[in-house]
């Protein structure tokens, strides 16, 4: 469903991804690992269409269609979701207002009638229970004053409500205590089915104890330098990235 070919991405004139290749098929979980500054977040931003990143080479195909001409919201309507490493705080907009606007925007694209406030409130309550979020979060302003863990849970809630086909989760595990991490992992595992896929960007192997990836890729200096199965993550945990860095420079 996602096909990335020879992708070069730059920001402020600097190449951050330099010829990245990746294919994600339905039903798969891919984990992208790598040291700081390797380009992991850049990959997530490029897929979701952050205007401050420029695609200067290669392409990203989504269900066969090039993403480069599509606005971030158009990508969302077509089934892409990105969980942010640092979710933003938006004062003055309540969680429910925001989520119903987002959900109805997608329904509009799909040619479905918008949900009424009542219908949406019902749906949201159900999803919030699944994500173990307290009811009060419905009417709180979007991420405003949320703790790090609450923000990340809220990302998973948004994913659950918007029901995308591919979820790109950018370090959703960072800064989480073990309970919150379990909630996030449960959310991801519940989400996955044979026609959905997940791209997990993570720093640590820890999350992969709860979410079992089909593939692990190591990203260094803007390229995938090594790919393997879930055992690669364990390998990285004990050996670090140095042996791969050396491999690159050789």
């Amino acid at each position, binding site marked *: 469903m996602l096909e990335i070919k020879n992708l070069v991405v730059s920001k402020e004139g600097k190449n951050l991804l330099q010829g990245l290749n990746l294919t994600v098929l339905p039903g798969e979980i891919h984990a992208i690992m790598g040291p700081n500054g390797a380009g992991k977040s850049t990959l997530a931003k490029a897929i979701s269409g952050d*205007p401050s990143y420029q695609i200067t080479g290669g392409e990203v195909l989504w269900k066969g269609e090039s993403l480069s001409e599509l606005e971030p*919201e158009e*990508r969302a309507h077509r089934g892409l979701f990105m969980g942010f490493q640092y979710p933003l705080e938006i004062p003055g907009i309540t969680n429910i207002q925001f989520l119903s606007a987002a959900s109805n925007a997608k329904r509009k694209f799909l040619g479905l009638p918008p949900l009424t406030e009542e219908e949406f409130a019902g749906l949201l309550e159900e999803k919030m229970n699944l994500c173990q979020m307290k009811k009060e979060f419905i009417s709180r302003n979007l991420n405003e004053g949320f703790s790090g863990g609450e923000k990340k849970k809220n990302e998973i809630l948004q994913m659950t409500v918007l029901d995308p086909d591919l979820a790109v989760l950018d370090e959703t595990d960072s800064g989480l205590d073990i309970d919150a991490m379990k909630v996030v992992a449960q959310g991801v595992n519940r989400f996955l089915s044979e026609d959905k896929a997940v791209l997990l960007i993570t720093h640590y192997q820890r999350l992969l104890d709860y979410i079992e990836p089909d593939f692990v890729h190591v990203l260094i200096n803007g390229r995938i330098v090594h790919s393997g199965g879930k055992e690669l993550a364990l390998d990285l945990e004990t050996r670090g990235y140095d042996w791969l860095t050396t491999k690159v420079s050789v």
Partner: protein
Amino acid sequence: MTEQKTLMKSEYKYGFSTEIEMESIPKGLTEETIRLISQKKHEPFFLLEFRLKAYRKWLTMKEPDWANLKIPPIDFQEICYYSAPKVKQKLDSLDQVDPELLRTFEKLGVPIDEQKRLTNVAVDVVFDSVSLGTTFKKTLEDAGVVLCSISEAIEKYGDLIEKYLGTVVPIGDNFFSALNSAVFSDGSFVYIPKGVRSPIELSTYFRINDKKTGQFERTLIIAEEDSYVSYLEGCTAPAYDTNQLHAAVVELVAFDRAEIKYSTVQNWYAGDPETGKGGILNFVTKRGRCQGVSSKISWTQVEAGAAITWKYPGCILQGDGSIGEFYSVALTNGHMQADTGTKMIHLGKNTRSTIISKGISADKSHNTYRGLVTMGTKASGSRNYTQCDSMLVGDLCSANTFPYIEVANATGCVEHEASTSKMSEEQLFYLQTRGIAKEDAIHMILSGFCKEVMRELPLEFAVEAQKLLALKLEHSVG
């Protein structure tokens, strides 16, 4: 979508001017000019005296320089102080107005002909210096409500004008109020008799058309005991590359238990967004006196235009238990500058005031809140609550807050809260990745920020004002 795009490109859709034959007096200001204006308007002697007194006072005064504004030098002798569309005969109704003018107002979204007018809103339209007429005259007459141009009021209700004009904003209050008192050409007059609730919203639409003409309108609203009125003004002007001066004075008087709600949606031409050339210089003095017990005056303003805004609508809370409110959204972008806020003067016992100010600054603009809260020695048990929030868009703009608080009695209570936030590309991107289009995302963030003010506006205007703000910011964020 395509419509949205074109709107985004047309920076200021009210920037056109109307070709119409005007009758103007020569530019410049002397005692003769004032006599000429007074004579053209067939004014009674007391008004000529009022004007001349103001003119003499003005000569001794200096332009205020304390505001956080860079004001270009204004040559008061280069301004034309009276200009009016040539009228061949006296009009009986608005439908006889020059079709060119009717088309102008239609383009502005203020249709004034009989079939298309706004429902439930009576409109008085002022073009350059002169009122063109009022809609819904009959409905108002039946209720006993007076809404007319101040010129008409001078003719018909001379005693009321003589009694109240200049009593809330004295002639010598400030440089611009003195100038206005000397040369004002038209404006609106509203009178709500005892016990009457105005059945419809009252409104005045101000349009500056001429390039060299200053607009000096004068508004007076009197609400007798137990009456209620909601009044709204809207303003636009063509895009010229020179500045035009707008110096208005608004006075409100509320008697026992009366309530006046005064709303403004100001969208004067703000000058070229790139160069800062041109635009309206908006120097306005607005003040209300809550004269009666438990009376209430509420100011709501959406200030989205003008190159420079200098404006502090205030309330004198004289009657015991009277209430003053100020709700403001001031948006500046391009090279705009705004120094705006309010004055709440607590004189009576148990008086209350609320100030909610939302400043949004974008591009290279400067946005200042300046407010004064005074609790007099007799204002025991009085309270004020002030909330000032600023939102910055981009990093070349600035926002300032100058709250002045003077409390002269121990039982007064003054609260002040302030916050500053930023609307960023990242926030918009975040909302977009959830499927919300950029324009809608701007709209959402803005309406969240301004909601306490917007809900004070009459509904149909709140929707318009909301759109206006979002439209102004689309350039700045994108």
